[in-house]
């Protein structure tokens, strides 16, 4: 079996694990170095979720997407750094230290797939897998100046993805250009009966950069309070460029945006509180003390093993689901989630795609965001796509203060091809 040699200068701390010799074979990704986020199971390669609680864990099986990469000859050269279990917007919440942004190493790369974005942006790998629960592919793509796609919910199998919030998250492709994102998406998108939410709707597509007659909805809320006016100006310029190539711009409203962020955080923390109950030191990770009583032993293991943000989210979710509060938080969040979905259904009756900024600002300075709520608020523009399950891409569209800005394009359910086409149209229009 031929191998790809990989000995990068990882000055941005993009990787938790690297393999100096990675097997490759024939296929559509033959010989291509691909990095995999460290919450995706890789047989025989340690998988940490950037958490001390999985220290020493070596998965006994491959995630479905990893099987697909291997089948197509990709060289899996390493596992990338991330916010612990995907919980964060900066990749600072990692037991392996923060990843730095290759555009400006005093800045964060975004998160939670910050290691994958930095590895692609710095040219260490051509492609990477990320995961996106509330923006975790699109945010770092935007901050690092690369392309990242969150596929339609159900289009990529989550089998072997270590779960954080099942009803929201998807694995997706990240690369320096739309063509590579599309190629990787072709490999990832196959039906897998081991994920009961996987849907048979294979992605077989060559990007078509024609936008003549395309209707692009632009919700006012995506340019409202909290969005840096300089970032908004760069994104408007990008949308105008698509208009210049024949698209029609339709301004619109998305009233559910008022509730979207709260609905997202109630839902994801509730799901996390359940999913992360499995980490108790019995089956994997640093062992629990079996000589002591159950609760005492588990509490000690989990206090030491989880970082502060993970503990905060598990507790918030436990509270939101607890007796007496379920109706006030979880039930209301699901009703709000339905309103977000209804807004997309209504808008897609008259527009083909919806566009706006990916992030309200450029990349933060390392250590700049210390207050949890202000960190959460920066996810406001990415969470609607996860709540509704629609596909969304971030494509670089210029700079503000010398730092990358991302244009976000959201599409209809199972029309990932269309958001790829619009991103390709923007990308090719700029380079023409």
């Amino acid at each position, binding site marked *: 079996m031929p191998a790809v040699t990989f000995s990068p200068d990882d000055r941005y701390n993009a990787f938790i694990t690297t393999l100096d010799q990675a097997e490759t074979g024939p296929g559509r990704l033959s010989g291509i170095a691909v990095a995999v986020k460290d919450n995706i199971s890789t047989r025989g390669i340690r998988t940490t979720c950037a958490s001390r609680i999985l220290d020493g864990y070596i998965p*006994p099986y491959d995630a479905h997407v990893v099987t697909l990469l291997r089948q197509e000859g990709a060289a899996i050269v390493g596992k990338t750094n991330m916010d612990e279990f995907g919980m964060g917007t900066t990749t600072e919440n990692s037991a392996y230290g923060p990843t730095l942004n290759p555009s400006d190493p005093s800045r964060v790369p975004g998160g939670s797939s910050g290691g994958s974005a930095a590895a692609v942006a710095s040219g260490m790998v051509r492609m990477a897998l990320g995961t996106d629960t509330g923006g975790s592919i699109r945010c770092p793509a935007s901050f690092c100046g690369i392309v990242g796609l969150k596929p339609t919910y159900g289009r990529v199998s989550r089998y072997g993805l270590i779960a954080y919030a099942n009803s929201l998250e998807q694995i997706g492709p990240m690369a320096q250009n739309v063509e590579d994102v599309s190629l990787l998406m072709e490999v990832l998108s196959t039906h897998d*009966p081991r994920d009961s939410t996987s*849907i048979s709707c294979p992605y077989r597509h060559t990007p078509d950069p024609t936008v003549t007659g395309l209707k692009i909805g632009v919700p006012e809320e995506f340019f409202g309070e909290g969005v840096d006016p300089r970032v908004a100006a760069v994104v408007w310029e990008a949308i105008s460029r698509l208009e210049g190539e024949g698209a029609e711009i339709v301004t619109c409203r998305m009233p559910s945006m008022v509730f979207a962020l709260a609905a997202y955080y109630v839902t994801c923390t509730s799901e996390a509180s359940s999913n992360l109950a499995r980490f108790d030191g019995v089956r994997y990770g640093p062992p629990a003390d079996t000589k002591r009583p159950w609760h005492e032993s588990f509490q000690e293991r989990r206090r030491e093993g989880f970082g502060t943000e993970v503990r905060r989210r598990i507790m918030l979710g436990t509270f939101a689901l607890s007796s007496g509060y379920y109706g006030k938080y979880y039930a209301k969040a699901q009703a709000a989630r339905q309103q977000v979905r209804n807004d997309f259904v209504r808008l897609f009756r008259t527009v083909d795609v919806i566009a706006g900024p990916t992030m309200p600002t450029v990349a933060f300075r390392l250590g700049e965001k210390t207050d949890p709520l202000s960190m959460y608020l920066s996810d406001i523009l990415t969470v609607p796509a996860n709540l509704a399950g629609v596909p969304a891409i971030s494509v670089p569209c210029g700079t503000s203060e010398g730092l990358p800005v991302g244009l976000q394009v959201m599409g209809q359910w199972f029309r990932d091809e269309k958001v790829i086409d619009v991103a390709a149209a923007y990308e090719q229009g700029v380079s023409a």
Partner: protein
Amino acid sequence: MIEEKDVEHIAMLADIGITKEELPGFTGQFNEILDYFDILDQVEGTGSFEHERANVFREDEIEPSLPQDDVLANTRDAEDGFFRAPRVM
């Protein structure tokens, strides 16, 4: 408003483990975040999220699964093909 004793209770329910020194910090942050969540009081109804569903049930046919040794490989405390866990009582 939630108080330190409420946070202590949640930490106990979640088996998360919390120290006295950590309580003021978490309590302050939770109050700030829960104040923000209050916007959900304005949402009408409590309808559940509407998914498009398809039946994914299958015949209960036995398929190959992981060998027992692989399943136990990551524990440091296996005995006679079982995981050892802390005592319940």
